[in-house]
């Protein structure tokens, strides 16, 4: 048992911390004020690529899957995700790299597909990937997706709509989950790689969100979108094992711990800000009624954040040692965002009237953090998953 970080990890985090302070935080605040995402040609992204900081879950074709390097381990990923989100979660999501599209390519893709779709990230320029599961009528109910895939000769033809997809407008490719026949349920699910500029793939809008303005959340339609048969992720053989839905779920098992710990990063930023505010403004040489309560509340918030982080670390660690982590990833995802929301809401209260001003960080964090309780499965769906595994709650409940 060892909760300590090794020196290399500490150094990497230190580097990211410097970057976060210098770039992430100011860029995130600026995007929030403008209400616009950071444009893909912003020099920040090239800087990130030049520093070799592209997505920690990115590819490493030289390494075997079973032997992830320390740098690319899920444990390193959660450390990075928390630190990056501490400085700005929106900017963290807009970082170049395969993003949430990385895990399905790495887990489900054939060696040829991994080479084909990941090689784009080797050219030392900013590129993005994206992951598209959510549909206008299917969010947490991922099994209910309606985007239809039809085989036509040596192609697949996709029809449907996806929504709230991060970075889809700037992505080189989007992993699109579709069904070959809704009657087949989960067995009908397939994952496809839809490349940029494919005819029939049309980003119809960039959503207007409450927070997290730094990155674009997109809706797109697929209208007779024809892609090569080779773009079926994992190839036909993969789905003969009825693994399409499982593939998506295993991707979630990796990303849920990440999203959970991102929430902790946002919450920690709010907590730090509130603590500093108290130090700066409330030591007036005399007791004030709410001091005692602020102390208790900041301590309570810290307990929640620390406990949540530990849950997320466990989820990542299990993945790294090749153990199932579906239950543990859901536990982290269920626990962390509410703890982080409480941290942000408390911070707003600690700042009193100043807390609702847009030029105060905590006001932004309060709006940003709510999304973390929704993306990658709401707390409601996490409870269902946890209950199914712990007490055998029936599937249909």
């Amino acid at each position: 048992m060892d909760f300590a970080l090794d020196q290399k990890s500490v150094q990497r985090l230190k580097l990211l911390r410097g970057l976060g302070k210098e770039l992430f935080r100011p860029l995130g605040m600026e995007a929030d004020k403008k209400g616009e995402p950071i444009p893909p040609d912003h020099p920040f992204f090239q800087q990130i690529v030049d520093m070799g900081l592209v997505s920690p879950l990115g590819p490493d074709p030289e390494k075997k899957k079973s032997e992830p390097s320390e740098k690319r381990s899920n444990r390193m990923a959660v450390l990075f995700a928390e630190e990056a989100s501490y400085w700005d979660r929106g900017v963290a999501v807009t970082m170049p790299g395969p993003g949430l599209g990385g895990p399905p390519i790495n887990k489900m893709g054939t060696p040829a597909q991994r080479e084909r779709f990941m090689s784009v990230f080797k050219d030392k320029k900013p590129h993005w990937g994206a992951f598209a599961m959510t549909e206008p009528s299917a969010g947490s109910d991922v099994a209910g997706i309606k985007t239809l895939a039809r085989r036509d000769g040596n192609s697949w033809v996709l029809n449907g709509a996806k929504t709230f997809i991060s970075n889809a407008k700037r992505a080189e490719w989007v992993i699109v989950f579709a069904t070959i026949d809704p009657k087949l349920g989960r067995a009908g699910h397939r994952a496809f790689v839809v490349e940029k500029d494919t005819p029939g793939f049309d980003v119809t809008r960039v959503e207007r969100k409450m927070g997290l303005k730094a990155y674009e959340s997109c809706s797109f339609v697929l209208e007779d979108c024809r892609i090569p048969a080779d773009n079926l992720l994992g190839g036909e053989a993969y789905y003969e094992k009825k693994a399409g839905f499982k593939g998506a779920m295993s991707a979630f098992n990796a990303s849920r711990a990440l999203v959970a710990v991102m929430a902790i990063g946002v919450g920690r930023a709010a907590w730090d800000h509130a603590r500093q505010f108290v130090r700066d403004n409330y030591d007036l040489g005399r007791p004030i009624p709410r001091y005692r309560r602020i102390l208790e509340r900041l301590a309570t918030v810290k307990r929640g954040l620390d406990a949540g982080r530990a849950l997320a670390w466990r989820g990542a660690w299990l993945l790294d040692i090749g153990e199932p982590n579906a239950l543990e990833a859901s536990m982290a995802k269920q626990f962390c965002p509410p703890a982080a929301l409480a941290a942000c809401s408390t911070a707003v209260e600690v700042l009193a009237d100043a807390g609702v001003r847009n030029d105060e960080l905590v006001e932004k964090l309060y709006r940003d953090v709510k999304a973390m309780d929704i993306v990658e499965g709401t707390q409601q769906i996490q409870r269902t998953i946890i209950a199914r595994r712990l007490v055998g709650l029936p599937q249909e409940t």
Partner: protein
Amino acid sequence: MFELSLTEEDDLLRKTSGDFAESRLGPAARDSEGNREVAAAIVSEYRELGMHALELPESLGGSGLPPFGKALVLEQLAGGDAAAVLACDGVGPAIYPLVEMGGVRGASLLEELVGKADARGWVIVDREDALEVTADRVRGRWPWVPAEKLDVLVVLKGNRALVLREGVELEPVKPCALHAAGSAAVAIDAPIAETFESASGAARSEARLRLYAASLLLGVAATSLRYAIEYTKERVTFGRPVAHHQGVAFLIADLACRIDAARLSIWRAAWALEQDGDPTEAAAAAFLDAADTALECGEQGVQLLGGHGYMQDHPVEKWMREARTLAQLWGGRDAALDVLADRVLETSGHVGFAVPSWGKQI
């Protein structure tokens, strides 16, 4: 024996204000937020209905409505747009210290203010001595008020109400919510126009401020839950309406209970204000019940809509921000808890005073 039914007049008030909120304030709320002001036509209708003058004495052209009636109306109006209420409510909550503490001078000042069609007023409760007060001036900065123009600012400080008419500079700032009401940081270097002093008047003023905020919070909470209920009844996941999943249904049931409890708490505080006794405890409890409920309903309203709730296509994200912002008013939950603890523990003064300063220790 206690009696909880509403009179015909109460029902009419609720219906009139509710209809106006639903037909006029609500549909315009996003535009009002974007424009950071309420359209002149809506302001005009608000005034024609007399909503801005409900608590004004009849001698000043108002309805002389007691706190209970005002609470009923504020809940309904806030269901449409709480920011518009603050924008349209004229002198607004500044009426309370003037009426409760001002006596003849307060009434005269109120008469002067009411004579101006677009007069705006606000109250700052300076519990933590952030402002410097001398014999004839108030100086200092206040981080935020929901207004960009003020004809009168009343600073409540202990048992005193300090009325400021000039020397109050407002610098616009972007707020979390309530954009349509205006939003500004305040720089004060002002001569004191009037000083009113009354312990019971100050307590009643604070209680009425809390009741005002609580009623708005309740309106936001209730409208958020109503919207989420309709949405979850229509949206289907896992083969059934979202609302029919137990985890969601129970959450909705819990929130509905909290809203009803907060409403009754507000009614009790309004009733207490209409009696001779001290309304402080009931008003503080009402504010806390409403604030906690609104914060929960605001956040869960977004949650119940899932990803759609986070987008500005639906109003729930706005209500979440509004709840968070309204819950900060006049010292927010902290101040209300202090007051409540004082009353419950029968301590004279602040319960926290026994605790040593610890600012540098955390």
